[in-house]
């Protein structure tokens, strides 16, 4: 059944209030159950043997001794995970990433796995597996991987998007070009042209909870998977397809999630756990170590980006171009394409061209990381915007406002924008007190803009009303950032009841229809839409039941402010019936009262943010301290402002770590040198200032409540905002992220400062 999704300017009673979070007590008391918190009778411990080489032929795997070790119940290799993908290359890539098939493609690639009665036996069994490798040449740098003569990682990768089609395999998966107009003519019109190359290093999402699951598969072909994930329906589909199970016979339950940020949208070891469980005919619990998380799950790309922007002295950009090279790990991805699409999306440009390259390297398969690919593109573009503003002597905020995209602008990635929020966020940043605060010696201020698409997708919800009038709302989008509170507010608002009367559950895959993964900032947008329609469905049923209780036609009943009211002169002497009163009589008026909705929630609406950052750089050590940070972002409608602010602050905090400290460091041997939080340093509270936020509410015309997604855009501007701030503090343009102390000192040395 289709519903009108248009924004209706509804007046709210509860939406926008800061109610208590429903998971708060569970999380602070330790009652919340995360991925590693499940157990089953007779469960085994799963462990994975991983490649110690960056690239190697696997000549032989001898598991004989491990199999004979007392307490070992299963040992598997790729031979136990046959290719059932029917020629689907992207599915085969997932399978091969879970377990190497003849070649280890990166340091940490899984080559075998065991299930044993305890951890010690499992570890001992791994040591008894003998793998004979022949090392192969490797490449871990994106620019080096594109050079002729680079070791070609896959002989089946031929660059797409180029004409003529290449006859030789290479590491370049695809070339994607976006833009419009004539950039050469535009540059010829420019008074000033700035060209610069930027690099960003690979970072991990850094979620605190490692990947963990508990898998059971019986001899009858039925199975259960308890797992930390952003998308248990997607995990069910992928796991079932890869290991040859019927989808309906695999029930996947999402645990409480200790952070995902895109890294838990992909399967990494869950199919392995299921195969071990099937082989052993016992439940298998598989929990990654932090080292495994770094080495064998999906960080974001390292990148190399060339930017060229030309402008008139009056501040009008005449042309903009970028070439973006994104390292995607050992398998094809779309990260360079996304970088190219997002790069110039903030601006109204007559002549623009962005070209993205997706490049394979001997590193772990890249996964989405919060607005994937956009932060690195923004680092290059927004840094160059500041350089152009400086060249023409214009305030960088005014320069951005002058060129900002607006309704009717053709986006650099193609479409024409409807109502958008970049202009208002820039104006709000310009007028923010932060912009006028005084800076001291060695301090600098920077600002930057960011864009992300947002999307919706397949969603369904069930709303059940108990006989006591409390409401159970079952949703299928995993709560990664507070959606249970937001959806509870939405259900209560629609039904006209108290927030405390609603309990929101994340239903397992056997209890609800398919829901797309919580990604693309879609959780509250899409499940919010389905909740509104499910609640309206329930209200129709409540009116039916009230009509029965009053013995009047349902056409004479309406739902107003949480009560059924009888309409018309004949019935208006009837006292309104509350939801609670109707629910109490439900056994005798037709049984349980419920509302249900399935929707493809499209029209999510694009999202923009502007950030301001002040830093202080110690010129002797190169250490940078962020002393003030402000996020301005369009939220559509902030359902629960605490969580919206939390998303803004979280994105900024991750961006600060990415900009200043975090990086994957590979040795010449192609091995990861810093696979742990001691050597890969994410920011802690003492590293961060209070991150101020300003929520703009520009309603999304395609959602009844005007909701836009808010989860991702906040990580797009920080690299550039901090880059501009550090550059202004030290007087030298920083072009390489992270701007760690050694990198800042090197830049100062090279500039003779």
């Amino acid at each position, binding site marked *: 059944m289709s519903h009108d999704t248009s924004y209706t300017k509804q007046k709210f009673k509860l939406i926008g209030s800061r109610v208590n979070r429903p998971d708060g007590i569970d999380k602070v008391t330790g009652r919340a159950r995360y991925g590693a918190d499940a157990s089953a009778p007779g469960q085994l411990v799963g462990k994975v043997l991983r490649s110690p080489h960056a690239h190697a032929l696997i000549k032989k795997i001898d598991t004989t001794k491990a199999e004979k070790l007392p307490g070992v119940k299963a040992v598997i290799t790729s031979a136990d995970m046959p290719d059932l993908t029917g020629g689907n290359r992207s599915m085969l890539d997932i399978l091969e990433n879970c377990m190497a098939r003849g070649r280890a493609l990166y340091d940490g690639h899984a080559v075998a796995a065991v299930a044993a009665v305890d951890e010690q036996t499992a570890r001992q069994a791994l040591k008894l597996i003998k793998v004979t490798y022949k090392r192969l040449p490797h490449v871990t740098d994106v620019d080096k991987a594109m050079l002729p003569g680079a070791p070609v990682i896959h002989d089946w990768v031929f660059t797409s998007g180029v*004409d003529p089609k290449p006859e030789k395999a290479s590491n370049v998966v695809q070339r994607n*070009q976006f833009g419009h107009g004539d950039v050469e003519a535009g540059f010829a019109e420019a008074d000033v042209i700035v060209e610069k190359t930027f690099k960003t290093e690979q970072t991990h999402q850094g979620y605190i909870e490692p990947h963990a699951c508990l898998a059971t598969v019986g001899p009858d072909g039925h199975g259960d998977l308890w797992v930390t994930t952003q998308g248990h329906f997607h995990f069910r589909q992928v796991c079932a397809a890869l290991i040859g199970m019927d989808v309906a016979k695999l029930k996947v339950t999402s645990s409480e999630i200790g952070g995902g940020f895109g890294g838990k949208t992909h399967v990494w070891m869950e199919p392995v756990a299921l195969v071990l469980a099937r082989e052993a005919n016992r439940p298998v619990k598989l929990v990654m170590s932090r080292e495994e998380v770094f080495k064998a799950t999906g960080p974001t790309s390292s990148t190399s980006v060339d930017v060229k922007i030309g402008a008139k002295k009056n501040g009008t950009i005449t042309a903009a171009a970028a070439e973006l090279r994104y390292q995607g790990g050992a398998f094809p991805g779309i990260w360079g394409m*996304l970088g190219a699409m997002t790069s110039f999306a903030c601006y109204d440009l007559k002549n623009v061209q962005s070209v993205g390259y997706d490049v394979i390297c001997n590193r772990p398969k890249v*996964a989405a990381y919060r607005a994937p690919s956009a932060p690195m593109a923004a680092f290059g573009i927004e840094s160059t915007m500041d350089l152009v503003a400086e060249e023409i002597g214009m305030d960088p905020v005014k320069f951005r406002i002058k060129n900002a995209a607006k309704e009717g602008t053709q986006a650099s990635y*193609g*479409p024409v924008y*409807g109502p958008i929020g970049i202009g208002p966020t820039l104006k709000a940043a310009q007028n923010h007190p932060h912009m006028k605060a005084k800076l001291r010696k060695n301090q600098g201020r920077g600002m930057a803009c960011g864009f992300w698409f947002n999307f919706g997708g397949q969603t369904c919800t069930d709303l059940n009303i108990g006989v006591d009038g409390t409401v159970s709302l079952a949703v299928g989008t995993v709560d990664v950032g507070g959606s249970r509170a937001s959806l509870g507010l939405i259900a209560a608002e629609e039904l006209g009841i108290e927030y405390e009367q609603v309990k929101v559950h994340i239903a397992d895959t056997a209890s609800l229809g398919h829901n797309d993964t919580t*990604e693309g900032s879609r959780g509250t947008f899409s499940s919010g839409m389905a909740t509104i329609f499910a609640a309206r469905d329930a209200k129709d049923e409540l009116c039916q039941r009230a009509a029965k209780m009053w013995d009047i036609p349902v056409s004479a009943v309406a739902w107003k402010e949480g009560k059924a009211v009888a309409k018309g002169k004949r019935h208006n002497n009837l006292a309104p019936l509350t939801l609670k009163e109707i629910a109490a009589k439900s056994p005798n008026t037709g049984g349980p009262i419920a509302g249900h909705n399935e929707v493809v929630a*499209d029209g999510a609406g*694009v999202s923009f943010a502007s950030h301001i950052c002040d830093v202080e750089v110690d010129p002797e050590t190169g250490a940078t301290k962020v002393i003030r940070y402000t996020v301005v972002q369009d939220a559509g409608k902030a359902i629960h402002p605490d969580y919206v602010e939390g998303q803004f602050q979280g994105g900024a905090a991750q961006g600060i770590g990415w900009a200043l400290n975090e990086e994957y460091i590979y040795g010449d041997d192609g091995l990861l040198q810093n696979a742990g939080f001691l050597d890969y340093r994410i920011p802690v509270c003492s590293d961060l200032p209070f991150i101020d936020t300003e929520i703009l509410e520009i309603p999304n015309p395609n959602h009844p409540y005007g909701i836009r997604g808010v989860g991702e855009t906040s990580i797009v501007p920080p690299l550039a905002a901090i880059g501009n701030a550090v550059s202004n503090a030290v007087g030298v343009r920083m072009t390489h992220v992270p701007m760690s102390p050694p990198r800042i000192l090197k830049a100062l040395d090279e500039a003779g400062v």
Partner: protein
Amino acid sequence: MLKVGFTGALRSSVNGHAQVDAQASTIRELLSGLVQRYPDLAEHVDQGIAVALDGEIYRDDWSKPIPDGSAVFLLPRIQGG
């Protein structure tokens, strides 16, 4: 009549055209008509494609009506975090 724009890798699957004319009242009609004319586009449609109508991106709702004169762009399907 609609003007349909193509970006990225999709352009090479429609013989390099930046824009083509099409007649369709829904996204489903649009995609099936285009695949008939440009068979190489089928692979992209199978893998997932997004359609921008007057600036709004639709990834899944193929029943979405396309008002005559809409600005239509076909985009590669995007992923999020």
